[in-house]
C-alpha cells in the first residue's frame, strides 16, 4: 500500500495543511509519497523531502502547473494516482478545487474532508455542517480523499530524508489561464488557519465597532470572523462569515462577542478547543456551548480584555 499526498505550497514554502495531510496518510499506513506540482518548485520539493515519514517526493516542474490550474494538474495527479492505493490532498481551497476532478478522471467517488481514519478503507467525515458524523467505507481501487487539517496533528516538518524524483509528464489542457490574484493584505492570520479567532455578531451594532475586535485580535495574533447576522446587517464583508454558509473554523480559542449562537453559526465553530462567549443576554444559546461565559456589556469588556491579554 502506497499513498500519494498532494503537497500544498505557496511562494516557495510548503503550506502547513500538507503536514496534517501526511499525518492522515501515516494513520492509514504504508509508504508515503508526496507530489509537488508547480513551476520553479525545486526548493519546495527539497523541503518536502524533509517531512517526517515521507519516503519519496515526486516533482512535476512545468509552466502548465503554475497557479495549480485544475484543468492541467488533475490529469497529472490522475495519471500518477493510478499506481497508488490512496491519493490524499488537504481540504484547502486548492485541494477542493483539484481533487474531485482527479476522482472523476479515475471514475471513483471522492471522500471529502475526513476528520479521522478508522482503517485503510474507512473514514469519518462531518456532514450537515458538522451536525452529524458519517462513517464512510470506500471500495475504490484508488481511494481519493481530502483531509480536514484540524482533524490531524501535523507531522514534523524536519527529520525525513526522502528521495526526490522528477516527473516529466506535462499536461496542458489549454482550457484555462491565470489572470491575477488579490491576496488579503491583512497581517492577521487567515480565518480557517488561525489558532485564535475573535468573532462579532449583531451585538456589535455597526461595522465601525469591529475596530474593538481588530484591536483585541492584533494583541492576540488572532483572525477576526463574524456571524451571519453581522454580515446580513452589512457590518462586515461575507468572507468573514463563520457558520454553515460561511467558513468552518476549529481554532484553539474562539471568542464569540455579541453573538447569540444560532444553529447555523454554531455549525461553523463548535469544534473549537476552547470557546469563550461574551454577551449581555445571559439567556443567549451561545452560553450552552461556551467553556467560559461572561455576561457583560461588550463595549466595556472588550477594551478591558485587550488591556489584560
Amino acid at each position, binding site marked *: 500500500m502506497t499513498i500519494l499526498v498532494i503537497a500544498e505550497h505557496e511562494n516557495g514554502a510548503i503550506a502547513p495543511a500538507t503536514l496534517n495531510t501526511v499525518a492522515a496518510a501515516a494513520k492509514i499506513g504504508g509508504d508515503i509519497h508526496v507530489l509537488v506540482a508547480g513551476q520553479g518548485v525545486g526548493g519546495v520539493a527539497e523541503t518536502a523531502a524533509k517531512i517526517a515519514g515521507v519516503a519519496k517526493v515526486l516533482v512535476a516542474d512545468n509552466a502548465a502547473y503554475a497557479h495549480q490550474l485544475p484543468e492541467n494538474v488533475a490529469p497529472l495527479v490522475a495519471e500518477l494516482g493510478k499506481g497508488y492505493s490512496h491519493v490524499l490532498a488537504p481540504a484547502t*481551497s486548492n485541494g477542493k*478545487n483539484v481533487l474531485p476532478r482527479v476522482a*472523476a478522471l479515475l471514475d471513483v*467517488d471522492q471522500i471529502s474532508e475526513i476528520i479521522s481514519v478508522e482503517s485503510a478503507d474507512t473514514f469519518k467525515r462531518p*456532514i450537515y455542517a458538522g451536525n452529524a458524523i458519517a462513517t*464512510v467505507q470506500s471500495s475504490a481501487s484508488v481511494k481519493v480523499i481530502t483531509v480536514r487539517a484540524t482533524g490531524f496533528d501535523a507531522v514534523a516538518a524536519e527529520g525525513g530524508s526522502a528521495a526526490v524524483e522528477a516527473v516529466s509528464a506535462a499536461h496542458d489542457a489549454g482550457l484555462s489561464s491565470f489572470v491575477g490574484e488579490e491576496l488579503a493584505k491583512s497581517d492577521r492570520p*487567515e480565518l480557517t488557519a488561525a489558532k485564535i479567532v475573535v468573532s462579532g455578531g449583531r451585538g456589535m451594532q455597526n461595522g465601525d465597532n469591529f475596530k474593538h475586535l481588530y484591536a483585541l485580535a492584533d494583541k492576540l495574533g488572532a483572525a477576526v470572523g463574524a456571524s451571519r447576522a453581522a454580515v446580513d446587517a452589512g457590518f462586515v464583508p461575507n468572507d468573514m462569515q463563520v457558520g454553515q454558509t460561511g467558513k468552518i473554523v476549529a481554532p484553539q480559542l474562539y471568542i464569540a462577542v455579541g453573538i447569540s449562537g444560532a444553529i447555523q453559526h454554531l455549525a461553523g465553530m463548535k469544534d473549537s*478547543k476552547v470557546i469563550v462567549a461574551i454577551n449581555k443576554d445571559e439567556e443567549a444559546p451561545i452560553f450552552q456551548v461556551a467553556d*467560559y*461565559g461572561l455576561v457583560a456589556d461588550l463595549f466595556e469588556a472588550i477594551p478591558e480584555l485587550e488591556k489584560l491579554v
Partner: protein
Amino acid sequence: MKVLVAVKRVVDYNVKVRVKADNSGVDLANVKMSMNPFCEIAVEEAVRLKEKGVATEIVVVTIGPATAQEQLRTALALGADRAVLVESADELNSLAVAKLLKAVVDKEQPQLVILGKQAIDSDNNQTGQMLAALSGYAQGTFASKVEVAGDSLKVTREIDGGLQTVALKLPAIVTTDLRLNEPRYASLPNIMKAKKKPLETFTPDALGVSTASTSKTLKVEAPAARSAGIKVKSVAELVEKLKNEAKVIQ
C-alpha cells in the same frame, strides 16, 4: 447563450437535523426542505446573465426524488425558462450525479453550467468539478464574480488567502460562493407563471447512466456534544482562566 443551472433539494438551512436512533442517517421525516442556498445563488446568477442579455435561455436541472419538482418550480419562478428532473429515489453520490448531469449537458449543449459549490447536507463540494472533468470543460469554482467576454469567461474565485481570477474557455463550469450575489425572492405573479413552464422528467436508465458507487455510508452518528462550561464574573477572571486553566493564551 444557453445556461444550465443544477440545483439540489436539501433540508432547509434553519433546521437542526437529528440523527436517527438506528444510526442509519438523519431524520428527514416532516422536515422543511428547500433549495440548497448555494444553488439559489447559481439560479440568481443565471437570471442576472439573462437580464444583461448575455444568457438567452436558462434550463434548470435537478437529480432527486419526485418532490424535487418543488425546487424546480422555485427556480422557474425566479426566472429559469424550463426544467429537467432526473428522478431518482436513491440518494446518489456526487460522481453519479455528475454523470447524470453530463448526460443532460450532452442533450442540452449549454455554453455555461452553474452549480452551487456544495450542498449543505452531504457537504461534499465535488459535483461541479467532477462534471467539468467528465465534460472536458474548464472550471471556475467558488466564484465571487463571473464575466462573459466573447468566447471566454472571466471568473474571480474565493481562495483561502483572498481572490484569484482565471480566464476559462467556453463552454465552462462555474460553482458559486456566497459573495457572488444576493438571491432575490420570487414574486407571487412569477410563482403563478412558473406553474405553466415546461418540466421534463427522465430516469437515469433513460439517460443510459449507471449510478453505481465505490463508497457507502456505514453509519451516521451525532457529534460529541459540547457541554456548557462555567460563567466567569469578570474580565480579569476570564483572562486568568484562559492563561492558567485552558492554557490557550500566554
